[in-house]
């Protein structure tokens, strides 16, 4: 920028106000008149009639040019690169010729211009730009223009004036680009704080771009040829492409980067290229505020067809610019750019979404190319091997962006939403080759056709897509109606041939199986497609007949999701719940329960077989523990006996003839041998290896053993055997059944069994919440919900310890369900430092580390307090204060608690309930002290299906509510407070 201009800028910095009223002198000059532009003539600048200027405004003048063939003169302009760069603070792009020519010709051709601009204002000029120019008006004292024009961007007048002043030295330059002066002027505007030279160019150039598209293309091409070399420093967007291609020949991907990185200002320009509306904006997108301008323009053009980033001569490769229309080329499915075989791999990269050039990845494909998806060209086949081709074509067909946009499909006059489209495409008999367009769909019979045409196909009936069918959907004129649609002549013909009585213009009611009734009558009159000949007739008349799969419909509704849906659908609708807890907290039971609850076949045959073996080996293990216990008891008893012998010989229970001492824990020799063998096997650790074979062999022995008084005696003292888990009783009591060869584990057995879910690592189950019956009343909105699938992921806590390294893999879960066994409060376990710690404290520590893990920042947590049944029973015997965390538990017990059990009318909370609430509050306080958020708590008993179902429903509600939270005001959702009833102590 020249210094003078700079000064002027400083002087002219005024206090601007929005939309100031114009109080200047009346307009003296002639009002501009609109003149239509001749398309094949590029409007050019003519001689500027020197307008009187205020003295202090010494402004550049643009000398007129008669540049009727710009392309020729263009090259001239290159010489002035140097001057240009110091002249313009912002880079003037050669293309600005097109945009700014109009202001240049302002004096002569202002009529046409104003017309253009007036019409230009119809296009989306952002409102701020209008303000901007109005603000500026007080600044141009000399140029009094019609106030009416103020809204239609009249700034070009001052432009013209300024030009005429100072730019005179730049004549040649402006020869080439009449506009450079203008953009210079715009730079002034920018400095004035208006900062919206963009919009002017925008509207102007848009207008121009329409009319001058022909010439501009010439321009572009010529620039691509000449400009690419000379304009290296000019940093214009249209140029980088060619620049770039020079640099990045070796490394195609660096091409993208330079696009992004080379120049911060360039970025908006790149975006712009996606929409023809703003194609020319990059002309002056150097200014900073173009950023938001483009973003404003963005939403309107999202669906607009993407234009290739580079413009090339017809037939040439868009990357290397070589070749002609006969060279084989691959086309980008988005932007129409064509690449020759040398460039295609570099231009398209790894093709994660099929054949798209790198800058088009993530954009929707051009609908006209939908038919070509997945159809490989010969060129690619030559370049790549079969496996690669297969992957590309698979990606092209199945990736989410390339799917048909739902709003492009109208069914019965209503555009579909996403879920409806999925429903339509995943039904058993989906419409073939669904293309964008308007369709009609007869929900009762499943007839499907293009709007205004006869039916083309019979798809699955009863899909809840689109609006109700219209009588004129297929544009029939026969007065015969099927399911409320007037049918076409062809259909009528078919009906007649099929033997349907069509006299008297009846209204038919046709079901999906082809049975038809006359409207208002109950009895089925027959089956349209029942006769063998009908299908032939249909084939002749090219009318659809029901496909086999659609006939066998009926229950397809319930298992829509079980259909093989593409991956992108699976990912989209899946809500993940993470279930974790300290070992022994019952996560595995909850997981199994969920599996049994929500799966039709919770465990496959194989799994059941494995589980059976597992349960049986578990039982052997329990038995071993019991036998060990028996030995210990026997020994103790014998010791006691020996000690007591002298004094209390009579107390001896029995004495065999052999003189061997015996107690109630003694067993006969045969059983003893077996017991010894079993213990030996267990110690050696290969129980699993031995036992399947031994089942048959030892079954009678086991039976005998179990019924022996010694084992029963030991079993009675099982609470003294720490090794024996609490569930062992359940299995031991049914031991005889379980150890049969033909034993089949029941669901309950599986629920109780230890180690069914893989004892380490993760297990996950996908499920749907079964729909309650009443939900049928709610229609579409709930149906979409039913498409939501859930995944319960259960993670074994073992191996968490101090490092939660792999927790970060679960950052996409929606909610963390943390299980704590209530009954743990008096149990102790060995922690990693080999000291004995209360299990509740271990649980708490684990809880803390999970909650404070950075991965779960802002995650919802649901605390499940499990094993309430055990807890309820235990708390009566053992005080909750056994755990040091709960030492301030002093429940207020009513005096008549003793008989409160039978006087349930007063609803005095039981000690168990009090304990539960107390623990819940303890955890909530801990949680809010760690995160300042609210913890959701639910009571659960893993062995009861209902309670697990309810707590998972609760989790779903939390997630759902979380999605809807923005819709509620704060006051509204406080109603949903999940605070466990306030607990005070």
């Amino acid at each position, binding site marked *: 920028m020249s210094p003078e201009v700079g000064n002027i800028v400083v002087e002219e910095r005024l206090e601007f106000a929005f939309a100031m009223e114009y109080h200047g002198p009346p307009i003296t000059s002639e009002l501009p008149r609109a003149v239509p532009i001749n398309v094949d003539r590029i409007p050019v600048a003519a001689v500027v009639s020197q307008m009187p200027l205020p003295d202090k405004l010494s402004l550049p003048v643009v000398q007129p040019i008669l540049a009727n063939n710009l392309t020729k003169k263009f090259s001239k302009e290159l010489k002035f690169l140097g001057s240009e760069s110091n002249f313009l603070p912002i880079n003037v792009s050669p293309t600005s010729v097109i945009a700014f020519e109009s202001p240049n010709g302002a004096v002569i051709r202002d009529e046409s211009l104003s017309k253009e601009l007036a019409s230009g204002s119809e296009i989306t000029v952002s409102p701020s730009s209008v303000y901007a120019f109005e603000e500026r008006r007080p600044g141009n004292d000399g140029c009094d223009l019609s106030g009416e024009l103020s809204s239609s961007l009249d700034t070009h007048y001052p432009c013209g004036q300024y030009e005429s002043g100072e730019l005179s030295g730049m004549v040649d330059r402006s020869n080439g680009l009449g506009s450079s002066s203008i953009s210079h002027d715009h730079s002034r505007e920018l400095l004035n704080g208006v900062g919206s030279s963009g919009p002017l160019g925008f509207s102007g150039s848009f207008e121009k771009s329409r009319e001058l598209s022909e010439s501009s293309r010439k321009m572009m091409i010529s620039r691509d040829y000449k400009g690419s070399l000379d304009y290296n420093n000019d940093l214009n967007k249209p140029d980088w492409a060619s620049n770039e291609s020079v640099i990045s020949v070796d490394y195609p991907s*660096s091409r993208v980067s330079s696009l992004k990185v080379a120049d911060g200002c360039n970025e908006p320009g790149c975006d712009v290229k996606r929409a023809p509306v703003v194609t020319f904006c990059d002309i002056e997108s150097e200014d900073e505020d173009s950023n938001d301008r483009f973003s404003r323009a963005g939403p309107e053009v999202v669906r607009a067809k993407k234009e290739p980033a580079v413009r090339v001569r017809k037939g040439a490769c868009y990357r290397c610019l070589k070749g002609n229309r006969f060279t084989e080329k691959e086309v980008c499915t988005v932007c129409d750019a064509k690449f020759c075989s040398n460039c295609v791999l570099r231009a398209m990269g*790894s093709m994660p979404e099929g054949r798209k050039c790198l800058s088009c990845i993530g954009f929707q494909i051009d609908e006209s190319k939908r038919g070509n998806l997945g159809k490989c060209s010969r060129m690619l086949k030559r370049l*790549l091997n079969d496996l690669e081709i297969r992957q590309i074509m698979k990606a092209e067909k199945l990736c989410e962006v390339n799917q048909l946009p739902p709003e492009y499909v109208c069914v019965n006059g209503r555009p579909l939403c996403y879920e409806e489209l999925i429903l339509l495409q995943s039904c058993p008999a989906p419409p073939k080759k669904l293309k964008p367009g308007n369709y009609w769909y007869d929900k009762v019979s499943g007839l499907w056709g293009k709007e205004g045409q006869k039916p083309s196909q019979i798809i699955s009936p009863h899909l809840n897509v689109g609006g109700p069918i219209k009588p004129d959907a297929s544009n029939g004129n026969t007065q015969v109606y099927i399911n409320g649609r007037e049918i076409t002549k062809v259909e009528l013909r078919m009906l007649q041939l099929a033997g349907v009585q069509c006299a008297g213009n009846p209204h038919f009611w046709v079901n999906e199986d082809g049975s038809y009734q006359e409207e208002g009558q109950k009895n089925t009159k027959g089956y349209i497609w029942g006769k063998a000949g009908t299908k032939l007739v249909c084939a002749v008349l090219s009318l659809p007949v029901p496909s086999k799969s659609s006939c066998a419909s009926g229950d397809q509704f319930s298992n829509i999701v079980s259909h093989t849906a593409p991956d992108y659908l699976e990912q989209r609708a899946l809500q993940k719940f993470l279930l974790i807890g300290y070992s022994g907290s019952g996560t595995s039971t909850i997981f199994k329960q969920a599996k049994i609850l929500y799966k039709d076949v919770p465990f496959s045959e194989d799994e059941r077989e494995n589980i059976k073996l597992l349960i049986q080996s578990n039982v052997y293990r329990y038995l071993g523990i019991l036998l060990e216990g028996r030995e210990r008891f026997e020994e103790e008893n014998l010791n006691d006996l020996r000690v007591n012998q002298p004094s209390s010989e009579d107390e001896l229970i029995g004495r065999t003839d052999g003189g061997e001492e015996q107690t109630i824990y003694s067993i006969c020799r045969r059983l003893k041998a077996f017991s010894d063998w079993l213990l030996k096997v267990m110690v050696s650790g290969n129980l699993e290896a031995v036992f399947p074979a031994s089942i048959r062999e030892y079954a009678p022995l086991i039976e005998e053993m179990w019924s022996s008084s010694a084992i029963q005696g030991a079993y009675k003292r099982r609470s003294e055997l720490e090794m024996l888990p609490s569930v062992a009783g359940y299995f031991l009591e049914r031991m005889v059944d379980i150890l049969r060869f033909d034993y089949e584990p029941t669901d309950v057995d599986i629920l109780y069994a230890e180690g069914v879910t893989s004892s380490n690592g993760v297990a996950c189950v996908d499920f749907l919440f079964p729909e309650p019956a009443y939900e049928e009343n709610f229609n579409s909105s709930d149906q979409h919900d039913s498409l939501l699938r859930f995944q319960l992921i259960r993670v074994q806590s073992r191996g968490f310890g101090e490092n939660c390294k*792999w927790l970060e893999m679960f950052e996409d879960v929606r909610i963390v369900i943390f299980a704590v066994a209530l009954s743990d409060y008096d149990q102790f376990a060995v922690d990693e430092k080999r000291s004995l710690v209360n299990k509740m404290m271990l649980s708490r520590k684990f809880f803390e580390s999970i909650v404070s893990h950075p991965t779960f920042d802002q995650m919802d947590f649901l605390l499940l307090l499990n094993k309430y049944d055990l807890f309820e029973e235990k708390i009566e015997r053992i005080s909750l204060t056994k755990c040091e965390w709960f030492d301030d538990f002093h429940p207020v017990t009513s005096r008549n608690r003793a008989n409160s059990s039978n006087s349930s009318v007063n609803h005095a909370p039981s000690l168990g309930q009090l304990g539960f609430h107390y623990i819940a509050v303890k955890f909530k306080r801990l949680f809010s002290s760690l995160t300042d958020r609210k913890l959701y708590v639910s009571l659960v008993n893993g062995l009861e299906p209902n309670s697990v179902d309810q707590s998972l429903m609760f989790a779903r509600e939390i997630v759902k509510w979380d999605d809807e939270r923005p819709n509620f005001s704060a006051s509204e959702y406080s109603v949903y407070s999940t605070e466990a009833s306030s607990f005070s102590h």
Partner: protein
Amino acid sequence: MSVAELKDRHLAATQTVSALRDRLKQKRLLLLDTDVAGYSRSQGRTPVSFGPTDLVCCRTLQGHNGKVYSLDWTPEKNRIVSASQDGRLIVWNALTSQKTHAIKLPCAWVMTCAFSPTGQSVACGGLDSVCSIFNLNSPTDRDGNLPVSKMLSGHKGYVSSCQYVPDEDAHLITSSGDQTCGLWDITTGLRTSVFGGEFQSGHTADVLSVSINGSNSRMFVSGSCDSTARLWDTRVASRAVRTFHGHEGDVNAVKFFPDGNRFGTGSDDGTCRLFDIRTGHQLQVYYQQHGDNEVPPVTSIAFSISGRLLFAGYSNGDCYVWDTLLGQVVLNLGTLQNSHEGRISCLGLSADGSALCTGSWDSNLKIWAFGGHRKVI
């Protein structure tokens, strides 16, 4: 012997051990008069210099939908296998940057993957505690998925890392969250040896990484959450040959130096270290102070073919190129054009050393190659 007495003796023994360990450390410090960097500087070596186009990103492998966790190159052909949180293994042709296989995994939580030496099969492991082998030549099922050809199950914790024993397709070494490493025979699907574990002198926390000595495939080194690295001999499973202390955080990555006499480690404490397996000494610490107090953990490391360069990926998205001799950062790939937008989770050098592949949590892989006329180092 009473319990109390035993406890006392145990306590005394532990104290003795730690005292001995301290003495060992002192002695080592005494013996360690210099580190690699100091010596090379005294020898007048100058760091490798990098021009702006010397190492450039030449391919971007797009196709994963989730965080990339692991990658591996084939030894001879230019193919890469990568594992991602979207539950897929993808086999790439690094030259054309196209996918050749996309394998959907039964368990989406995959942490590691490896290419077999012949390039016929790939292995992967993750939170399912199983190492699965896929034969790339086996026919796909009707959904187009490649079936698992072998499941190596036996670990009691997640499989954090796996590597094929060089030059044979039949053996594989895994590391696991159950504090052990395992040597597997793939043909039988059985574990031939377990390294570490309850009664043996092994790692005392999750093992995160293994690396097999390239010149002597009987030796391998493992890095663990107990902040040590251990050297193992596959013939002696009972105890580690040597334990390398020094790190102050979990050892996330170990990698043998190309000559097989040294190995590098990368850790949560933000440092990379170079250890000598013959002396057990720590030769060099590679650490650069960041502006803020944050110390980004090292996620993955790789040596250049000569060993002169050490590539280290950090959790903040940086990828430093260290000059191993002088201990200086000579390049940061994270600041180059076209770099990853997320944490760099894995690194790997192609067998001929001409290209580096990085995998990131931004779900892309990038291949970096020496541009211009620069020779491979």
